[in-house]
């Protein structure tokens, strides 16, 4: 019963991470609130941040970035200049709202105001810097955003400074965290990744233009992200220009974080099936966002997936279907430039294999999963690649053989049987990588040569679908991957003519009847008058 013992291990990790409690050894404390704060800390925080605040709790080895080490008093999210301590308000915000894109949740819905204030006071006791009265933190003067920040001219100015002050060195030309220096970035020896500026909902300090401007001014201490305040002071750029840069960065992400919609609608199109990733037919097709999370159910588990989600578009013709998958990936794997970073990633995470794994040049991969047949009821195969008794049908693509895809049956994580004879009824693929983003198009005939194992696509039915992604340059391969749950794909049926005719017919009939009634009534009235 491997599955059960696995579940128990996961359970233990979760319990340890979230509910670690330590015996009631309360040391005398300088103030009342730090005593109360210690109790809160030991219950809710120590599992990750460690009993002594050194960022070495039992769950720490499952996280990139690792939990904050409070002993150095180095904090990313501040309103103060680089090198300065954070204000209490800065710390309170991180505690209350959490740090998006990391394992740190917001605590404002879980702890009372009092508890959060107390734990803040206690966290400050881990470092002597907070006791140094000469280091009292002063927030910077930020001012407010100049107007017109979403206009073309503002964004042009912002882009100009994005280039001139070297943002692309780490964040990449299009801002997907794929710059030339990105594979070398470290934070206290741990690997760290330049933010993907197209996913502002994952920015540690918040995703508004104001948040971005504040981070540009203060830097993210501890990380490679520096402060740019000196540029204003030394007149290399103006405050407005730095705001424009912040507004440009904000413009790279959608207006609102993507919302998960469970059903992908694949419209019927009249022209040829778009087989190329950049086919113009894709432009008018609706895109659906599916978040991915680490595979933490079976060994080897993976707690630090690089692919945070995948955008999916689908269309079909009378006889074929095409799925376009788009996802941000900071490396076109296999890429030797990332090999050292892969080593750092593997070294930072606790392996649950008996031997630590050596870094290698793994490819990027993506997989689309369906049941072998459209289920009649609600029951679907196990989402994590099926099981020996209930296999699932998958399409797999790898960056090591870009223009091909493999269809096959997965029978659990360990077993994938490719279906030979890809010609008739086989799956086609075309892929393109551009500056931090993969686009892969899968194509197949709707009909299946083997309806027992290779899903025949039918219109008007909810077809379960799930996705898996691997970033080779993040050390991902095999069971170390990002996974989704089941969603649905619906191939829209051609709309029958009666759908358009019926309402018109109904309106004409109603109108006619109404007029008939009025006419009859008028007839009767005039008849009575005549009498």
């Amino acid at each position, binding site marked *: 019963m491997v599955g059960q013992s696995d579940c128990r291990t996961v359970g233990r990790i979760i319990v340890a991470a979230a509910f670690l409690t330590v015996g009631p050894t309360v040391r005398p404390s300088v103030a009342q609130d730090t005593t109360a704060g210690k109790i809160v800390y030991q219950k809710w925080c120590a599992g990750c941040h460690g009993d002594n605040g050194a960022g070495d709790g039992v769950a720490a080895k499952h996280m990139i970035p690792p939990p904050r080490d409070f002993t*150095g008093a*180095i904090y990313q999210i501040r309103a103060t200049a*680089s*090198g*300065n*301590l954070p204000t209490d308000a800065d710390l309170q915000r991180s505690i209350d709202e959490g740090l998006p894109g990391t394992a740190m949740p917001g605590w404002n819905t879980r702890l009372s105001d009092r508890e959060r204030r107390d734990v803040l006071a206690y966290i400050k006791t881990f470092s002597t*810097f907070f006791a140094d009265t*000469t*280091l009292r933190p002063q927030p910077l003067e930020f001012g407010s955003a100049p107007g017109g920040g979403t206009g073309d001219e503002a964004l042009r100015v912002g882009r100009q400074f994005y280039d*001139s*002050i*070297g943002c692309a*060195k*780490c964040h990449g030309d299009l801002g997907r965290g794929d710059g*030339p*220096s990105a594979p*070398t*970035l*470290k934070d*206290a020896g741990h690997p760290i990744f330049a933010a993907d500026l197209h996913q502002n909902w994952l920015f540690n300090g918040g995703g508004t233009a104001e948040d971005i401007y504040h981070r540009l001014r203060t*830097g*993210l*201490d*501890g*990380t*490679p*992200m*520096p*402060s*740019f*305040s*000196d*540029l204003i002071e*030394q007149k*290399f750029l103006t405050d407005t220009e730095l705001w424009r840069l912040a507004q440009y960065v904000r413009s790279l992400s959608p207006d609102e974080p993507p919302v998960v919609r469970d059903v992908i609608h694949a419209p019927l199109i009249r022209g040829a099936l778009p087989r190329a990733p950049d086919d113009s037919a894709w432009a008018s097709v609706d895109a659906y966002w599916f978040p991915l999370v680490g595979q933490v159910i079976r060994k080897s588990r993976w707690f630090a997936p690089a692919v945070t989600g995948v955008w999916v578009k689908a269309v079909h013709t009378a006889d074929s279907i095409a799925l376009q998958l788009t996802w941000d990936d900071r490396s076109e794997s296999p890429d030797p430039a990332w090999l050292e970073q892969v080593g750092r990633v593997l070294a930072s995470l606790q392996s649950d294999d008996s031997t630590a794994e050596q870094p290698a040049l793994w490819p990027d991969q993506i997989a689309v999963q369906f049941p072998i047949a459209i289920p009649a009821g609600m029951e679907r195969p196990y989402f994590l690649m099926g099981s020996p008794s209930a296999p699932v049908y998958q399409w797999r693509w790898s960056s090591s053989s870009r223009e091909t895809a493999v269809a096959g049956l997965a029978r659990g994580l360990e077993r994938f049987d490719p279906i030979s004879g890809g010609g008739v009824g086989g799956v086609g693929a075309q892929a393109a990588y551009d500056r931090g983003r993969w686009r892969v198009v899968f194509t197949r005939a709707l009909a299946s040569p083997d309806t027992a194992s290779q899903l025949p696509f039918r219109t008007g039915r909810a077809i379960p679908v799930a996705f898996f992604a691997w970033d080779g340059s993040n050390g991902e391969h095999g069971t170390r991957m990002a996974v989704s749950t089941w969603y649905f794909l619906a191939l829209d049926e051609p709309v029958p003519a009666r759908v358009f005719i019926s309402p018109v017919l109904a309106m004409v009939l109603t109108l006619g009847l109404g007029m008939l009634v009025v006419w009859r009534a008028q007839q009767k009235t005039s008849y009575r008058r005549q009498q």
Partner: protein
Amino acid sequence: MKGRIFSVVGGMFLLTVCGKGEQSQVQAAPPAIDPAPASASSSAGGTITGKVRFTGTAPRGRPIDMSEEAACKAKYTTPPTDESVVAGAANALSNVFVYVSAGVPAGQTFTAPATPVVLDQDGCRYRPHVFGVMVGQAVEIRNSDPVLHNIKAVAKRNRPFNVSQPNAGMKMTRTFAQPEVMVNLECNVHGWMKAYAGVRPDPFFAVSGPDGSFTIKDLPPGTYTIEAWHEKFGTQTATVTIAGTESKTANFTFAAR
């Protein structure tokens, strides 16, 4: 990185940087002329000189790939190499920070020089690679490259910082409040760029030059522990007793690893 000897000159605590042979040299503090206010008890004391060597084979400096930074690459006629071990003739070892780690009477205070130590970013390298600075003494960080550098100070006893200098001609000044051997400085845009600052409460420190030699001057009589720090080979210590205005020798030999 040839030819740089940091010496602290008789009671003046002024930093003199003598560069030989290279065009793009550290723009060091002006030549020592005015003596700083003498706060140490003696104006002339003993001197400790010595040479730092290593045994074994020096690791071959890895070439640094500057192809992403044409402006930096253009500053070199021969490909630049990693600076973690800079060896001179007869296995002389430069860039060793030598300082008095114990023996200076507690409570004795020293005034930091008014002139700053200059750290230049030139050719996508820090110049100097290793330097000493007193607590409270200014470190002026300059960018002579027309490319983005960030200067990240990694420290435990001092506050760390991380500031960008995307343009040539930018300057900033920082001080360190606590003694710390060493504060690491690094550029994250160019992962090979590293510098090390030894922050001391007294002026009794030096950095070994290309011939491995160093000089610490004006030590009052006493028995001192001298520590030599090298970024790759670790630390060594020696004990030296100074009786008057004599000159004592302390040589250090590291094992290459």
